[in-house]
């Protein structure tokens, strides 16, 4: 409606926080108050996500997955992480349907059974949407701990399907991919949130 509303300093931030998920307060590292043992977390007001950027990042993640990785071990499923990210941050834009569609594209590429990735991505997408109100109150490291089981669920779903139709046991190192993915979570969230952290107009004297 009004692009100007971010620029007008009249409305206090707290009210905006109630208005939309995009204005929700985001945690960062705590800052200690000198002389006390107390601290507080300064919270950024994020700009709204650009839908073009959302879809471009998802397609970029798909492209990274399509690179000829061959049998290199411990390559994480970047598309799954990106889907989880947008499911958590923009659940109204990127939902279970999008996850399903990207899963189908992965199935065609990876010579897998049709629907294998689609099911895995549907499950993690549901998990992410269920967690999305809770997860953002944690710092990035703790968020990664939430993301790890989600990625593991996707891998277990793939594993169960393939073992059912008679696949080969891929070895324990297979589950390491989820671990690498969780480790990458802070980096990926930082990169994907960067455009929203950009100030509307640069002002050296303003703290935000």
């Amino acid at each position: 409606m009004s692009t100007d509303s971010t620029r007008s300093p009249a409305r206090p931030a707290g009210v905006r926080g109630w208005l939309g998920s995009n204005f929700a307060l985001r945690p960062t590292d705590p800052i200690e108050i000198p002389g006390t043992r107390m601290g507080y977390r300064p919270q950024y007001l994020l700009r709204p996500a650009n839908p073009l950027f959302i879809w471009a990042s998802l397609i970029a993640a798909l492209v990274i997955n399509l690179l000829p990785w061959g049998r290199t071990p411990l390559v994480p499923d970047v598309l799954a992480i990106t889907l989880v990210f947008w499911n958590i941050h923009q659940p109204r834009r990127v939902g279970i349907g999008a996850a399903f569609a990207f899963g189908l594209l992965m199935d065609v590429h990876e010579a897998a059974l049709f629907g294998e990735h689609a099911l895995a991505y549907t499950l993690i997408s549901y998990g992410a949407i269920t967690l999305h109100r809770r997860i953002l109150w944690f710092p990035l490291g703790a968020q990664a701990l939430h993301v790890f089981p989600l990625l593991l669920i996707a891998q277990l779903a793939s594993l169960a399907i393939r073992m059912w139709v008679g696949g080969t046991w891929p070895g324990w190192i297979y589950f390491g991919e989820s671990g690498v993915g969780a480790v990458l979570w802070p980096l990926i969230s930082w990169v994907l949130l960067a455009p929203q952290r950009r100030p509307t107009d640069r002002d050296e004297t303003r703290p935000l």
Partner: protein
Amino acid sequence: MDYGPPPLFNQGVSARARLAFFSFLAIALIIIDSRVRMLETVRVGLGVVLYPMQRALLVPSRVADTVADYFTSVTTLTRENEQLKRRQFEASQSLQQARELAVENERLRKLLGARERLGNAAVLADVLYESRDRFARKLVINVGINDGVRAGSPVIDDGGVVGQITRAFNETSEVTLLTDKDQSIPVQILRNGLRGVAFGGAEPGTLDLRFMAPNADVVDGDVATTSGIDGVYPSGLMVATVSRVERAAKDQFARIVMSPVAGIESNKHLLVLLVEPAKLAAPAAAVAAPRKGARK
């Protein structure tokens, strides 16, 4: 939209309902794909959409390869080498068959007459990439339906059989390697003509010669070639050498482990043999014989 309030009442379909719907759809797709094999056309169609992207993504690794080539040798030498490799490669099929022919000729002289031997049409293919699929051993090569490749065509290299085309797209196709757990190939021990069927091995990168009696005449170092009785693989192609034979009295069968002759892990060029579908229908003659008798 982003500046407006979130819809408080009209939230759309609940996440749980969506989960149920899409999981059901995915499971239905899995079942249809694994049991009925009805989705091949859909897959080929989506493959056409993804193909330009896949090719573009191969460019970086190709460029890296080319640069590496340039630094290891002079460019012209590389090209010449490549041509020679190709030529040698195209001749390799007849070479492999010739080796077996010599042995078989000797045997046949004692028995019957020579058997008719089929020369196969073939297309040369480059390996595009190895599938990232961690549950199966598959390669993707750069020839497809448009080059006459069909699902089922055998794939060889200069050493021996590599595998079989399991899925053909318009421009690319998937090769399932012999070492894949679900892959099987009828073989014959070159030394004594003993026939058997080799399956992808329990250990990675090996083949198992299953269902051989504990006293079967197979020893370490025996060479197994295709027997040709399935009508898919032409006979006489090198498959594997026996690397280990275990005979336990309590087991019904001997445990025979073979290692593939072809450079299954390290191939750049492959040869796809175009087997005609007519030759696949070999058992028809056997069925037709008694019917003739009945008519008379």
